[in-house]
Structure formats: structure tokens, C-alpha cells
């Protein structure tokens, strides 16, 4: 039986953000999008550490892009979700949906 891949809560947030941003997913927009969508104040270091972990798991890949003067000549690192990453996000969604179903406490949107 293959070992299932798990995504932590923040890992899932980062994965969804990278998917949402498409080709323009590097540190700055990823952090901004997370802040905008979740209202959380996120540290860039945390986002990078999560992306690095996801890359080690094979869920995202990265490549270096252009270096601009306002970045002090440092290149941007662009991230993209891999096929394994996409499959894992789907599996996580299915697991969460199964857990959600039939919970009376969470129905009606008042809790």
C-alpha cells in the first residue's frame, strides 16, 4: 500500500496560493496573497521554509527568474505545483470534505 501524502494546514494554504498565482508565484505575491485571503500576518521566512519543505516532498518545483535592481540584483525564485502536488491537494480536499459531511454543528453557517 503506498504511503499517503499529508499536507499540514499552512502547507495546504501555501499550495492553494501557488496554484492560484500560476506562473507568477514567487515569495512576495505568495505572502501577499496569503495575507489577503486569510487575513494572517505571515513572515516571508515561514513561507520559504514551507515551500522548501514542499519542494523536498516533491509537491512543488522551483526555478530562478530574473534579477531586478530593486531586489539588489537578487533573482526571484518561482514556484510551481507538480503533478504529485496537485494530486495531494485533491486527496487532502477529499479527506477534509469527508470529515466535514454530516457534522450538524457546522451546518447552517452560524457556528
Amino acid at each position: 500500500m503506498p504511503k499517503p501524502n499529508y499536507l499540514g494546514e499552512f502547507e495546504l494554504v501555501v499550495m492553494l496560493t501557488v496554484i492560484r498565482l500560476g506562473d507568477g508565484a514567487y515569495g512576495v505575491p505568495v505572502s501577499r496573497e496569503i495575507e489577503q485571503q486569510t487575513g494572517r500576518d505571515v513572515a516571508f521566512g515561514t513561507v520559504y521554509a514551507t515551500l522548501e519543505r514542499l519542494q523536498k516532498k516533491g509537491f512543488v518545483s522551483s526555478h530562478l527568474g530574473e534579477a531586478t535592481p530593486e531586489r539588489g540584483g537578487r533573482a526571484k525564485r518561482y514556484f510551481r505545483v507538480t503533478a504529485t502536488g496537485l494530486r495531494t491537494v485533491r486527496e487532502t480536499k477529499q479527506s477534509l470534505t469527508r470529515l466535514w459531511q454530516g457534522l450538524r454543528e457546522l451546518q447552517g453557517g452560524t457556528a
Partner: protein
Amino acid sequence: MRTSHAIALSLFDLLDLDVALAGDLLEERERGCSAIWYWRQVLVALWIGIWGAVRDHKVLALRAVATGFAMEYLVGVLWANLSHLLPSRPMLSMSQWIMHLSLALLTQTATGWVVARTHRARQVPMVLVFLIFFSIWNVWGSWDWVRMVLVDSIDQPRFRPYFAQYLITLFMMIVGILLGCMLARRREDRHENISRDRSLSF
């Protein structure tokens, strides 16, 4: 801003953090984020870098702490055998104190160097882990004395030099360990440059 960014970059470099992260932070700073925001982000990134290295290399971190304390033990033995040659507490003259400080700096530099050289794969995080344990151990070991002098220093100025001596000695020991790490790192860099030059010349 360039200076602060250069400091942040060299810190990132020390911990082998992604340079793209440094670029992202500078990009945001250029867009108007405050210096406080910038340094908070840098500190969080450094903390995550150190903690991540320790979490991923727990055995290496334990070994670094053990190596450092083995060195401290050796220094302690040496100190115990030679201490009769040196003046002792409670209050030293300025020249005696400078001699004590120089010895502390020298021995701690040696300790930092040994820890860094024996943990080449993750030199800086491992030395920092040892440094944290060493500082806690040092303060813990002399806590009763430190607390007494600290409390007495509040209303009796004559006790303040004792407390200042303790703090400065601790500070110099920390500087010594970091200096040892830097020296080991410089040596590594020089070796890397020489090997690279040799490989290019062939």
C-alpha cells in the same frame, strides 16, 4: 538601507538561506515597508534557518553541544591546574582582569573553532546551538552569585563593578565562540577557493 541590507545578506549567507528571500525582502522594503518590518522578517528568517537546521540534524546538534562541552571540560582542567598562577576573585585589578578576559577569549575562540571544524556541513547553526546551551549553563551555574550581586547592585553601587565584570566576561566568552566559528569558516572558504582555482586551471 544598503548597509542594513548588506548585514542581512551576510547573515543569510552565514546560514545558507535562500538569496531569493533576501531579494524579496528588499523588494518589499523598496515598496515602502518599514525598517522594523524588514528586520522582523530578517530575524524570523534567521531563527527559522537555525531552528530548521537543528530540527533536520538533531544528532549533529547533540554532537556539537557534546563537543563544545568536552572542550569546556578540557579548558576547565587546564584552568584548574594553572589557576594558582593567576589572581582570583572577588575583585581583580584592571590588568589582572584584562589578562583573565584575554584568556577567556582565547579559550572560547578555540572551543568555537573546534565545534565549527568538526561540524563543517552546518557550521554556524551548530555553533549557535552550542552557544545557547553554553550561555544557559554558564548563567545557571553561577545563578546564586549573579542574583545576589544583581540584587545588591540595585541599591549599593559598590557591588556594580562585580556585576559588570561578570557580564563583560560572559560577553567576551560569547564573542570568543563566534570568533572561533568565523575563523573556521574563513579557513573553509579559503580552501574552497583554492580547490576551485585548481580545478579551473586544469
